[in-house]
């Protein structure tokens, strides 16, 4: 290196607010992303509640048509670009270095830079509400020519385009640091096939991010140019080309918001079944197969265009049932033969498995073009993807959150409040989204502020459900608040877990591991150690049932 400049070893972070903001420790960067993502989750959730209030009865009661268009656009954009995608990556940013026995993430400054870029993107998107024409109002993906400056004039839409581009770029940078960590920073002995299940799901996730997110950044840059200069997405070809670019990102991102939670649920299920994950190698193969297929299914969003080879995308999309089926088999087989302990993380994990199934099976239905010809663009689709993203991914996130919260903070969450919030959320999710299958099937389209009076009752039911979801989320927040105020110390390993992060202190020190790492003998090193110590006896922790 020129001049022989030495890079100083990272100093322990200063306790000031500025020090916290500038700290490059992966755990702090992950916490910043998670806090920002939670902020955007609550904002976007409030937008959903306003929508459900409007939709509770036919007719327009609270908002205008245009406001409603902003609401569903910003709700969808907020949840996807600013909440589920970044929070999934934040979980990886926090856990992957710990799980592979690394002291830091690779390229920690890049990860921090990614956070700031993402935050700027989120603020840009939401600041559209302060402009004359309001925030973006052309759905979470926008279409052309609708999103041209002529059809959707205004700075708010530009802020949306810039915001989405930045948020996606920020997520991309964070994902790159996770991928590099897995490739470069695994501890000695941590071979690829000894990485925990969660790390494998993150590896698959970051592959998809690296392959698809740059396309979206470019698509947003082109869309901005189209709005101000024009001549890029001309005519029918341009309109279809924009959709191709968007969905080339838009479908893989769905699995980016899913895989990390499969991994989290896998860890939770094996820990609370007191058993190592079943079918590890089959899972690895299925994840890689899933990742490969995920890059070849985007056209199933375009079946009704009559402009893509429907049969090809139908085939690739339905083939996803094979790796998905293996994942389900492995999760269930991990429970079978176990000694299952019902703590809050396990409840959310089971909720994820069963509710996501409804989203997955209806996904096979919409992967068949003649069936999609009916349900595309209807509330059936809204029901389908909320079963995957809310009843699925959000439950998976909460499983992981309740599981790793003691590790991240050193304090346990309240068990009774946690279980209560789970049941309230189950009630809310199903009451909100199950009626939407019938609404869509009977002819109610998406993205409308008003609907035919015959859909009134089911919509009312759905709106009541949304209230329960809000209540459940408030209970989760209350749980966090109470548990941090009156701390019940967690200790290093409150659950009898299996992976490396549970061998260090809670929260982990600046460089993650104070003492030497335990021997890395498999993807469940702590379980190996317990089994070696107590070959014939009941493993510790099984009696810790609540």
């Amino acid at each position, binding site marked *: 290196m020129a001049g022989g400049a030495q890079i100083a070893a990272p100093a322990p972070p200063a306790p000031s607010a500025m020090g916290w903001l500038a700290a490059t420790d992966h755990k702090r960067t992950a916490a910043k992303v998670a806090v920002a993502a939670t902020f955007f989750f609550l904002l976007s959730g409030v937008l959903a509640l306003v929508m459900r209030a409007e939709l509770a009865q036919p007719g327009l009661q609270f908002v205008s048509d245009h406001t409603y268009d902003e609401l569903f656009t910003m709700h969808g954009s907020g949840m996807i670009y600013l909440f589920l995608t970044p929070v999934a990556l934040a979980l990886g940013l926090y856990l992957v270095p710990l799980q592979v026995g690394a002291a830091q993430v690779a390229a920690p400054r890049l990860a921090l830079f990614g956070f700031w870029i993402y935050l700027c993107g989120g603020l840009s998107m939401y600041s559209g509400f302060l402009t004359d024409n309001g925030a973006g109002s052309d759905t979470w993906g926008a*279409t052309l020519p609708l999103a041209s400056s002529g059809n959707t004039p205004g700075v708010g839409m530009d802020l949306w385009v810039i915001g989405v581009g930045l948020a996606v770029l920020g997520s991309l940078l964070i994902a790159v640091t996770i991928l590099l960590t897995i490739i470069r920073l695994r501890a000695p002995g941590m071979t690829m096939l000894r990485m925990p299940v969660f790390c494998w799901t993150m590896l698959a996730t970051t592959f998809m991010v690296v392959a698809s997110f740059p396309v979206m950044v470019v698509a947003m840059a082109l869309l901005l140019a189209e709005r101000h200069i024009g001549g890029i997405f001309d005519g029918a070809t341009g309109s279809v080309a924009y959709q191709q670019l968007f969905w080339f990102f838009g479908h893989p991102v769905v699995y980016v918001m899913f895989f990390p939670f499969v991994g989290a649920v896998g860890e939770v299920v094996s820990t609370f079944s007191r*058993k190592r994950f079943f079918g590890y190698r089959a899972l690895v193969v299925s994840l890689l197969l899933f990742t490969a297929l995920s890059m070849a299914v985007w056209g199933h969003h375009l079946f009704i265009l009559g402009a893509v080879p429907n049969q090809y995308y139908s085939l690739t999309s339905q083939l996803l049932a094979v790796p998905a089926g293996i994942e389900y088999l492995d999760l269930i087989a991990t429970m079978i*033969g176990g000694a299952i302990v019902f703590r809050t993380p396990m409840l959310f994990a089971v909720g994820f498995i069963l509710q996501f199934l409804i989203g997955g099976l209806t996904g096979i239905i919409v992967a068949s073009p003649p069936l999609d010809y009916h349900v595309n663009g209807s509330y059936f689709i809204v029901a389908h993807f909320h079963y995957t993203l809310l009843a699925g991914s959000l439950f998976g996130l909460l499983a992981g959150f309740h599981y790793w919260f003691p590790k991240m903070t050193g304090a346990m969450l309240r068990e009774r409040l946690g279980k209560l919030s789970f049941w309230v959320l189950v009630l809310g999710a199903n009451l909100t989204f199950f009626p939407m299958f019938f609404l869509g099937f009977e002819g109610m389209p998406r993205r409308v502020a008003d609907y035919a009076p015959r859909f009134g009752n089911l919509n009312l039911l759905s709106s009541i459900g949304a209230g329960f979801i809000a209540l459940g989320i408030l209970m989760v927040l209350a749980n966090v608040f109470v548990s941090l105020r009156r701390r019940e110390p967690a200790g290093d390993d409150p659950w009898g877990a299996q992976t490396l992060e549970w061998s260090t202190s809670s929260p982990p020190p600046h460089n993650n591991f104070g003492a030497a790492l335990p021997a890395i003998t498999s993807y469940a090193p702590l379980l190996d150690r317990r089994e070696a110590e107590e070959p014939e006896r009941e493993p510790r922790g099984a009696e810790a049932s609540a």
Partner: protein
Amino acid sequence: MKAGTHQEFEGLFSLYMAIGIGVAVLVFAAVGFALVHYRARGDRRPSRVSEMNRIEIGVATLILLIVAFLVTRTFTVEARVDSAPKEPTTIDVTAFQWGWRFVYPGQGVEVIGNSNDEPTFAVPGDEPVHFKLTSADVLHSFWIPGERFKRAAIPGRTNEFDLDFESEGTEDGLCTEFCGLRHSDMRFNVWVLSKASYRRWLAAHR
């Protein structure tokens, strides 16, 4: 004569639903069994078995066979639904912000309406109708829920399809591609008539 999109849809949908419900019942039962039977009790020791690749391969093969079956059925049905031979009755449909224009070529008949005044166009109920669909401005989508069918309306491009309306009466249709401010109100009605009534309707609208 080919079946209408409605019957084609019902046949395929009930097949997917039957398999979907079967799988759901199986998974719910397996999870329920695991949670009840393998819950932690005083003397339960967790099994140390963690790999059975024969089961993995078996399940993967089974799912592959189901997928192969479903995809084959999908392709067969789609080929029938997508085929759009020339029919005696052709209607040119143009979607626009925020309404619809239906032109009967060679008949001198045109129906037009917007979000304030929903258009109603007539079709003969006893023969297939050939549609040519396009858009005048942004993307729209032409959905008739009763026929279980929709197609995108793309500016600068024409999509062609056949629909076979069977039962006489009125069906409602609407736009399902978000297209701006009055998207919610972009509706139309289809009046399915007997051949004789349809001819009278055409004559009355010339």
